[in-house]
């Protein structure tokens, strides 16, 4: 189970960034914990977190929500989900995750974030394998941004890929 002190920085960061960049208010929907495959909405930004917190954050939304948020951010109507729009949504995930890791550092967890990757296409299937995902719907007047956190406390360290392959696969953690 993901601890609240790892989750709250993401909630705060998402609320702050969506408010300051897109002028929307965010309310949190009911949380669920998921272990099975994630079926995506139209647009999903994936940002990895690597350090004393270790895992991934996903930001999923419909194309309409993405275009609505971008229109507010850019101050002009975004009608096509083209490369510029994709870049903008990637940046949104990047900025939220960056801000969340700044807050995590204030709680004593140091982590770096990866460059964002965009997964495009409704109904794409993503697995985070043995890391469960806490699903947090962020409700805004432009639609729901679904935040999935697949994070682990990694303060004890430990490098991945160091254990015998067959053993790691055969013995789920």
């Amino acid at each position, binding site marked *: 189970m993901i601890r609240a002190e790892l989750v709250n920085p993401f909630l705060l960061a998402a609320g702050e960034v969506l408010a300051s*960049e897109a002028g929307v208010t965010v309310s949190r929907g009911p949380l669920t914990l998921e272990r099975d*495959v994630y079926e995506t909405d139209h647009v999903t930004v*994936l940002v*990895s*977190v*690597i*350090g004393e917190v*270790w*895992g*991934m954050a996903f930001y999923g939304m419909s194309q309409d929500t993405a275009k609505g948020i971008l229109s507010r*951010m*850019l101050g002009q109507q975004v009608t096509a989900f083209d490369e510029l729009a*994709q*870049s*903008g949504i*990637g*940046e*949104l995930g*990047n*900025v939220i995750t*960056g801000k969340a*890791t700044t807050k995590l550092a204030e709680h004593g967890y140091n*982590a*770096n*974030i*990866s*460059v*964002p*990757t*965009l*997964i*495009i*296409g409704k109904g*794409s*299937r*993503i*697995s*985070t*394998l*043995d*890391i469960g995902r806490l699903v947090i719907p962020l409700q805004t007047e432009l639609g729901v941004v679904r935040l999935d956190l*697949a994070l682990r406390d990694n303060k004890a360290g430990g*490098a*991945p*890929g*160091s254990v015998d*392959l*067959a053993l*790691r*696969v*055969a013995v*789920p953690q």
Partner: protein
Amino acid sequence: MNVKYVNPFVQAAFEVFKTEANLEARRGALSLHSSACTSDDVTVLISVVGQARGVVLYSMSENTVLRIVSNIMGQPFEEFDSLAQSGVAEIGNVITGRASSLLAEEGIEVRISPPVLILGKGTLVSTLDFQRLVVPMETDMGNIHIHLAVDDTPEGMFPGDLPHVAAAEVNL
């Protein structure tokens, strides 16, 4: 994309296929892409942060996965079940981990993310402003395409900090 990142990944893939699956791999012709990648049946995605940063994708057919995982685990896999999914993710993890050790030997320190699996053909995966170098690895069990979207982390920059974060906060 900086070409100095190619060889550590290719060498790591050769080594891991050889030691884990007793499989000889051959490298096909490289190609460079700017557009989004359309996924094959199975794609393992791993991010890299540190003195280099970016994303590595390992893409292959389900049939190739089943043959390689059967070989590694020493038991036949006929279905792409959760154990086979773990197996293929681990292959990506071990190759990327080994590549990071080879990069460290060249003075480039990086850390890697947990693997993420993208299941199903035809999903678009965009590495945004990072170009992808595609390295086909041919084996007797099928082809694995390694997509490298990895570049230098700008000097003096906090590795997780993108240059356009600041720009985004000002302009957007």
